[in-house]
């Protein structure tokens, strides 16, 4: 089953239906360690659904997702058939992948620092003092150290998203998934979040990013994937995709988003 010896995430023939709606229609992918992969494409093309299949927030119904040596979400039963994995195993795999959401999804009744240490303390059983110290380091790194004791509703969208990134990093993830992290932000706040993401990429974090920020894709991505109608229709280094797209629909999409 293995290909790409150093791949962190491997996807084989992935399918996902919502009722009769076939959203992901057979996708293959291998994300190498330290790679930044950016997925672009028109809305409704299945990008977010694909990303959410990687940590089983969406339960895919065909194909396989591998995270390291773990098959994500399923286990092989006695007769060789795939069964839904135990909740505990699914959670264990998820804990190793950070995820950042379009709508931040911070816990509103917890302070920024409490949001950040929730996973390490509750899920990983880390001592509170140690988790707080690491949490404060992370908040310093994303530049909102002074907001540690603020509640999410009291800080800006950009600060909330940076807090959400710190919350994901607190789990010491092996890869980070970003689901349109800047789409809900006012334009002037987009930059501060992208800067944090660029910093992570520079440190060698493995990242899968769904975004409409084409400049980010051009500057930071190692590989860009164009998704359309549930399929990866074109893949390549950003220079190639942006300057000489192979497919007319990629060219057409880029023309519409880059004015």
């Amino acid at each position: 089953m293995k290909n790409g010896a150093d791949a962190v995430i491997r996807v084989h023939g992935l399918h996902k239906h919502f009722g009769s709606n076939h959203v992901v229609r057979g996708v293959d992918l291998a994300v190498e360690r330290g790679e930044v992969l950016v997925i672009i494409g028109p809305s409704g093309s299945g990008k977010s659904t694909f990303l959410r299949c990687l940590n089983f927030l969406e339960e895919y119904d065909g194909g396989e997702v591998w995270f390291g040596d773990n098959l994500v979400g399923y286990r092989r039963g006695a007769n060789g058939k795939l069964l839904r994995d135990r909740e505990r195993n699914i959670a264990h795999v998820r804990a190793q992948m950070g995820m950042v959401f379009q709508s931040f999804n911070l816990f509103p009744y917890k302070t920024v620092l409490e949001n950040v240490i929730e996973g390490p303390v509750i899920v990983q059983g880390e001592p509170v003092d140690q988790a707080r110290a690491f949490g404060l380091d992370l908040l310093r790194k994303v530049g909102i150290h002074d907001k540690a004791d603020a509640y999410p509703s009291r800080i800006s969208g950009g600060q909330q998203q940076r807090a959400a990134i710190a919350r994901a990093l607190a789990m010491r993830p092996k890869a980070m998934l970003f689901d349109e992290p800047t789409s809900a932000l006012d334009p002037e706040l987009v930059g501060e979040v992208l800067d944090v993401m660029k910093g992570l990429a520079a440190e060698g974090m493995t990242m899968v990013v769904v975004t409409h920020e084409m400049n980010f894709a051009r500057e930071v991505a190692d590989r860009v994937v164009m998704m359309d109608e549930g399929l990866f229709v074109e893949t390549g280094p950003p220079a190639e995709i942006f300057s000489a797209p192979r497919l007319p629909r990629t060219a057409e999409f880029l023309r519409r988003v880059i004015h």
Partner: protein
Amino acid sequence: MSYTWHFGILLDYQVVFYRAAAVTIEVTMGSLAIGLTLGLTLGMMRLSRHAVLRWPAVFYIELFRSTPVLVQLVWIYYALPVLSGVQMGNVATLIVGLGLHSAAYLAEIFRAGILSIDRGQMDAAKAIGMGYLQAMRRIILPPAVRRMIPPFINEFATLMKLTTLGTVLAVSELLHESENLINNTYRPLEIYTVLALVFAAIIFPFIYLSQRLEKALTVRS
């Protein structure tokens, strides 16, 4: 208007009201404890994606919501022993019966409260490696329960008034004791008036508190 009110004689019997009020409160608290525990379980079962959990909960909730409480109580007291050999005392029957009944309504309050929390909260909790029950307990239920406080108190008041059905099982709660008192004193108008006031005196503080809480919570969010 020739009726002369004689509230004075009730002063001699005030201890009857204290004792009966204690029974009423005991039954209310007991059945509330059963109702909350079972209600949370049923509410979560009804939200489950597994049909084997969901359907029994739906059946239970709709059965108890669509039959009269009085019939449920009498059934548990008289029919259950015949079928199962389990005979509970009248107070136990009242507590269990009202507990089972309120569980159906509380389950729906829990379900609505859980559904009112943004789906992204569960996503975020799962993404940091929490299991479903852990996410419920740590992330979903705390804010959901805050929103449930007003309907809970409403249900609490309803439950306390339903304890008067205990009179058909001869439980010495407020209504039953009042009726006994009427047989001794022949003062039904005074006694029913005081009975109503006693209920109001117990329940009103909770309703007041619920309104205060509701206001405080809307201000904060």
